[in-house]
């Protein structure tokens, strides 16, 4: 991070370092205020019913667990965290509007189980293509996969349009029937 916000880099982007850094410090502090006050409010009812000792023990255990995680389990930590981010669908780059409509369908299903079924399908389908690179061991294999992905990009985009159209028709047919 420190290497990415320097007077040298900002000059290259046509910006003034002190303006960027002032905005950066302000933004970071404001985000801290928002998250801290939000969590403080959320936890207030729990905290008011829990003795200080118990809360301190929870913090201590969390620190110890965090240190253990930092020390040697990075793979599953970042894998899980990245998976959660992608499975949520809308907290990273959204490639297709069908992501939003998927969550709309989950909301309109009106049931936790039905929504979970839709969400499970999305999260799994979002993640499972990663297995296609399971065999990549050398740089040339990675380039090959990259080439295949580039070739399939346009067909995948068209296929999504097609599936979207079919699903819209199905939904309208369903609406006509019920």
């Amino acid at each position, binding site marked *: 991070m420190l290497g990415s916000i320097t007077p040298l880099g900002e000059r290259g982007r046509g910006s003034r370092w002190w303006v960027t850094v002032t905005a950066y410090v302000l933004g970071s502090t404001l985000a801290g205020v928002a998250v801290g006050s939000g969590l403080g409010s959320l936890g207030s009812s729990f905290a008011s019913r829990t003795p200080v000792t118990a809360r301190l023990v929870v913090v201590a255990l969390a620190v110890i667990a965090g240190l253990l995680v930092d020390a040697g389990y990075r793979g599953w930590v970042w894998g899980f965290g990245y998976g959660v981010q992608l499975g949520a669908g809308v907290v990273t780059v959204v490639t297709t509007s069908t992501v939003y409509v998927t969550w709309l369908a989950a909301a309109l299903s009106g049931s936790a189980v039905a*929504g979970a079924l839709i969400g499970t399908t999305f999260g799994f389908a979002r993640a499972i293509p990663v297995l296609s690179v399971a065999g990549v061991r050398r740089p040339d294999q990675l380039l090959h996969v990259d080439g295949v992905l580039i070739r399939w990009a346009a067909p995948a985009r068209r296929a999504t349009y097609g599936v979207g159209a079919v699903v819209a028709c199905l939904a309208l047919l369903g609406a006509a029937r019920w």
Partner: protein
Amino acid sequence: MSPGMGSATVDALVVVGVALAVAAGLRSTWSP
């Protein structure tokens, strides 16, 4: 809405939602 009608609507929404989920999930492979 009768219970049967609600259930059928949920079923239809699940089918539609699952189809969208597959398309959206796989298509997202091409996110930058």
